Structure formats: C-alpha cells, structure tokens
C-alpha cells in the first residue's frame, strides 16, 4: 500500500482541522484520486446544493501512485461541484503540490463550510492549521505563492492558491499550483474562493509508505523504459502538446472564430516552430521544456515575452520566464478568437496563471463575445470601448486582465459563454456542453470527440475519453460509441492512480496494472482496474442526475449539430450525435433517458446511489 491512511478535514466554518482515517473500503473500490474523491463527495454533500454555497465540499485527492518513484507521479485531482456546470467537477493538475501533500502525510484534503474571514491552510508533516489571509485577499496567485514562501521562510513550500478571479466567483476560476500548473477546469477555484480559502501551503518530508519498494522500483524501471522508447513521448518532450495545432489546421478540425471556421492560417505563427524561431528583434519565445514531479516526459513549455512587444513594453513584472503555450492555450488565445500574435498569446497565458483562470473557458467565452460584437449585439459601450473583433490581439490581453481583476466588461466575461450568451439573447452561440466550453477540437470533424464532449460528466472536455485513432480512421459517427465508452472508463481509472494521462502513448492498461499491483496489491487486476473506472464514471453520472441534470444535457450546440462543416476533411458534415448517443446509452447499461439501470447499479455495487 502507498496510502498513509489519513484524510485531513478542514472545517472552515468552525475554523478547525482534524484527521480521519482513510476509508480503505472505498479506496479498494475506487482506487484513489478522482474515483475516491467522487465517493467522498457523494457521501458528504447534497448534489442539489449551490456550488458556491458553504454546503459544497472541496476535495484535493492524491492517488496511490502520487509521490512514488513512478514516472509522472505528480498528479492530484480537485473534485467538487462546479459553478460553471452545476455538475460534478473533476480537475486534474501536475506540478509538485500533489506529491508534497502526500509527503506531508495526507492522502486527501477535504474542505467543508465557509470561513468567516479569508484564511489559508498550512500543512507541515502531519500538522495543519488555518491561518488568517486578510493580507493575501485581493492579491494574485503569483504574489500569494511568493508571500507564503517568504513568510514561512521556506522556498520548498508548495502552494495551491486562487487569484481575484476565484475570490470573486469567476465561473471558470481555477486553482493554480507551483505558479503555472492548474486544476484548471469547471471553476474549482471559484468554489475555493466561496469558502474564503485563499491558499493551501504544504511542506512534507514524511515520504510515501511502500510495502514492497523493490517491486515498485523494478516495475518503475520497466515502465520508464517504455516511455523512453515511445515516439509519442518523444514528440511531447520535443514539441509539447502544441505540435497538434498544425495537424488540426491541416485536418480542418481547428475551431476558429467561435467555431465559424475550422482552419486557421495564422496557426503557422503560433506553432512550435514559431515558438523557437527568433523574431525581428532577435527574441525567441521558447526557452526550454519543463517536467512536473517525477515526470520523464516534460511536455511543459517555459517561455518569455519579447520585452519590446506592446503588451509588456513598460511592464517589467512580465519580463520573466513562465509557463508557455501548450495546445489548448494556443487554441484558446489563437484560432478560436482569430489571433496569431505569439507574444500576445503568451501574455494572455501569463495573465491566466497570475489571476487563476481556465484559459479554455476564458478564450471560448471571449470568442462568443466577439461574435456577439461582430453581430452588433455588443457594442463599444458594453466593452469599455474595446473593439471586440475577431483577430484583435489587444482585445485578448485587455479582456484577460479585466476578467482576472473583475473590472468592467471582464465581469461579464467571468460569467462564462453560456450565461453571457443567454444574457444577450443568443444562447446558441455558446460553444459549451453542460455550460463548459469546448477544447480545441471541432466535433464535426472528430465525431467520437463529439460523443465524448456530450457525455462528459464535467461538461465539454477532451481529456475524459480518447477516440482520436477512430476519428482519424473514419469521419462518420459509426463505431465511435464503443471506444468512447471504453476509453472513458480507462481514463477514469488513470485519473485515479496519481499518474499522468500523457503516458498513454507508451502505457496500456496492463502497464498501469503492473504499477498499481506492485504498489497496492495483486488483487488489482486489469479487470478490477477497468471496473473501478466504470464505477467512477457511473457514480459521477449519478451525482449529476441527483443534482438535476438529465439526458437533455448530453447534447451539443446547434452549430455543430445543424451547420455543415465549412471546410476541411469533414466538409459538409455535421456531428452525428443522434446516431451515437442511443448506442452509447445502451453500451453503458443505461435507460434510453440516460439513467443507469438496476442491473448496472447492482453490477457496479452502486445500488445505494440509485436515482
């Protein structure tokens, strides 16, 4: 076992902390991380509760492999009810915070209630205390992390915190750890802010218990070698995830101008080649790549902005190196808003990390606002005098900052696409599922992606299924339900391990099984692992059904279902969700209204959670 057997509970209303034993029976059913946290969440809160009320519960969960010697063992999850979707939120992050939490002697951190005044939680080797955060409230993520390291005179402290966006309830505020890694999606940072919890600062030297370290070391060596030899891993190391932007442009699946187009000629100005090519001032955007805790991939990018660029010319506090473009940030500040100024994109990324916001949701919300502007529904009077035309790089950075600081039109952008478009009478322009904005793949070109988006329990998401191979092989909806369902279950399992999803170019389910069996025991067979993933998926679904969501929420915007693709390999096609969804429900063992049948509940030992 690699568990400490300890759960830290921070009761913010009572201003107390306590330690409870880990529910090992649940860990045996749900593995850890995403699955285990979902089980705790369903036990501890009413799914109907307002996401920003004290009744919501905010869980930071490690997996059994978090903090071990395994490759990519730095992952942790934040699980709660999300304000963007009013559904379950499960946001996964890397960096070093997750491993440090485990090193401090805790498997999970559960935050309940709401503090009377702003606080932060300090955790040091089995001890925890809530501390006043009045001085930190209203400050940025970057200031908070620096302040806490300085205050406690320990540069090794790992910090997860929120910015003003989280404090003031931006629907897609995130929790940022280690300055530029984030539990990014679904608004988990807004939940943290609603609890008046500014930060969690952790220092741990306890380590991770391990019953059979020799066996874990042996399987780590073997799986490390698999990663080392993998072409997919090499590509991530060398180019990062942004290598995808050329492919999606050529394929014709790159959402551009709020999904009005599917190719973006400007992609050549923001692709990995552009990142490493000096500009006319001799400035090169990319500095190096960076790894999270224990990672042997290092897909992260470290970049810096040209000091002569208009965005930072007189702002020296942005002249340092920080997180650079990855595919989703490049998409969300690039094609979907029509901008191809690499320094403006990089600056927007800095602002997201500094103020604690999800780049995907911000970018797609801005894209919706730009379409509203170009339609004449929004005017300069609404937008503080800033023309919100597609392609306006200044509008991108100005609005990123206004949203992060919750000033002017930034307050409206902080609502997210769904509420913004509803407010201005054009809900169909919101490119969302269940209120959450799409990642950088158009589901008219990638049909399996469309099914995955529509059925994702946390709203539109590209990371909860993997149907890419099937979508490349065939541009119809045929045969997409099976790989969608199976990959959702597999990824729910992977998210529960504490390992990274980006290992799957080298690791199949058996490779994960060998590592989990070495760490947690041989009863974790391949079948049990996949069943735990399926159980997690269904429990998330049941949480959402109890919260009031229905099959009607498993859908896509009319633009994707009714407007034929204007270009690319799928020209003329719409997403065939109507064909895929009934097959998917049947495969899942759900009724035709998307409710798990009694037989499915019994098979997965979920009877007590029946709707």
């Amino acid at each position, binding site marked *: 076992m690699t568990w400490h057997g300890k759960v830290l509970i921070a009761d913010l209303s009572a201003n107390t902390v306590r330690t409870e034993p880990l529910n090992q029976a649940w860990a045996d059913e749900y593995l850890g991380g995403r699955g285990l946290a979902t089980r705790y969440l369903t036990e501890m809160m009413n799914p109907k509760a307002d996401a920003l009320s004290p009744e919501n519960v905010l869980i930071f969960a490690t997996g059994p492999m978090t903090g071990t010697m395994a490759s990519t063992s730095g992952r942790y999850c934040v699980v709660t009810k999300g304000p963007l979707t009013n559904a379950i939120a499960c946001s996964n992050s890397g960096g070093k915070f997750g491993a440090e939490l485990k090193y401090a002697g805790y498997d999970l951190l559960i935050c309940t209630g709401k503090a009377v005044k702003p606080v932060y939680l300090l955790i040091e080797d089995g001890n925890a205390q809530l501390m006043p955060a009045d001085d930190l409230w209203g400050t940025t993520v970057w200031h908070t992390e620096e302040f806490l390291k300085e205050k406690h005179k320990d540069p090794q402290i790992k910090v997860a915190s929120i910015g003003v966006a989280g404090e003031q309830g931006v629907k897609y505020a995130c929790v940022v750890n280690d300055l530029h890694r984030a539990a990014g999606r679904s608004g988990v940072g807004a939940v943290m802010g609603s609890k008046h919890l500014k930060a969690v600062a952790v220092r741990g030297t306890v380590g991770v218990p391990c019953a059979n370290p020799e066996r874990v070391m042996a399987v780590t060596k073997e799986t490390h070698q698999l990663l080392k030899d993998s072409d997919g891993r090499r590509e991530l190391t060398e180019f990062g995830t942004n290598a995808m932007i*050329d492919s999606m442009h050529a394929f*014709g699946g790159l959402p551009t101008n709020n999904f009005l187009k599917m190719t973006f000629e400007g992609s*050549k100005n923001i692709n990995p080649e552009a990142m490493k090519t000096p500009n006319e001032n001799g400035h090169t955007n990319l500095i190096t790549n960076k790894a999270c805790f224990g990672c042997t991939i290092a897909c992260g990018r470290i970049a810096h902005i040209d000091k002569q660029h208009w965005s930072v010319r007189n702002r020296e506090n942005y002249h340092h190196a920080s997180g650079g473009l990855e595919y989703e940030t490049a998409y969300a500040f690039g094609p979907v808003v029509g901008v191809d100024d690499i320094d403006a994109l990089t600056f927007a990324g800095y602002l997201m990390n500094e103020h604690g916001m999800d780049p995907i949701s911000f970018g797609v919300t801005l894209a919706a606002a730009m379409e509203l502007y170009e339609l004449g529904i929004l005017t300069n009077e609404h937008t503080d005098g800033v023309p919100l035309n597609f392609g306006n790089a200044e509008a991108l950075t100005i609005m990123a900052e206004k949203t992060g600081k919750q000033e002017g039109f930034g307050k409206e952008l902080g609502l997210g696409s769904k509420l913004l478009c509803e407010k201005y009478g054009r809900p169909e322009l919101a490119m969302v599922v269940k209120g959450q904005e799409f990642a950088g793949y158009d589901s008219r070109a990638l049909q399996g992606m469309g099914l995955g988006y529509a059925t994702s329990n946390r709203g539109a998401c590209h*990371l909860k299924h993997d149907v890419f191979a099937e979508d490349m092989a065939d541009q119809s909806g045929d045969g997409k339900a099976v790989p969608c369902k199976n990959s959702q279950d597999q990824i729910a399992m992977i998210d529960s391990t504490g390992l990274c999803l980006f290992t799957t170019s080298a690791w199949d389910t058996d490779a994960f099984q060998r590592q989990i069996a070495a760490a947690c025991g041989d009863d974790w067979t391949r079948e049990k692992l996949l069943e735990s993933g399926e159980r997690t998926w269904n429990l998330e679904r049941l949480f959402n059904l109890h919260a009031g969501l229905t099959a009607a929420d498993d859908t896509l915007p009319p633009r994707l279902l009714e407007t034929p693709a204007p270009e690319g*390999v799928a020209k003329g096609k719409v997403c065939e969700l109507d064909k895929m969804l009934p097959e998917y429900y049947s495969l899942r063992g759900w009724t035709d209204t998307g409710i798990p049948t009694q037989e499915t509940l019994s098979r997965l030992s979920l009877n007590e959670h029946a709707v």
Partner: protein
Amino acid sequence: MSDAHLDSEEGSLQITLSLGSGLLSKVDESYRDTSQTLAISEGITIDSVLNRLGLPSNMAVLVILNDALVQPSQFALQALTNGDRLSVMPPIHAG
C-alpha cells in the same frame, strides 16, 4: 515557403507540401520547412514522397491530400498530380 526542390527525383509536376512542426526534425535537412513546393515526376505516390522526405518507414503520420484524409493503406496507391496540396502531419491525440 521555399523554392521548388531540385534534386535527382525532380520532375515536371509541382505540388505544395505542408509539414507539421513536429516532423521537421524527422525529415532530411533539405526539406525542413513547414511549407514548400516540391517538384515531382508523373505517377509518384504518397509513399514515395514520404520516403523522399526521409521519414522513418514505420512512423505514424497524418496525411491530407487536397482537404481529404488519406488512410495509410492508400499511401502506396495514391498517385499525385500537378497542383496537389499535400499535408504531412503528426498524428492527432489529446493535447
């Protein structure tokens, strides 16, 4: 975009070749440009172009010809013609 390549396999036809950034380090040095014109001879197939670029034969790539996806099974069969637009890209996966 670079000028048309002139080499021993030069032909009278020209195609436009787009290469993904992620492939530039994998192709022969003379082809390291994301957009270029390639001189080809009559009847040349996609397989032959990939070989000419120096890409490893077992490397998975995404190939799009004139906005149509070409499956790997067709690489050896699909002949190119004058004016074709050929894109050779890294495979697509989660990013």
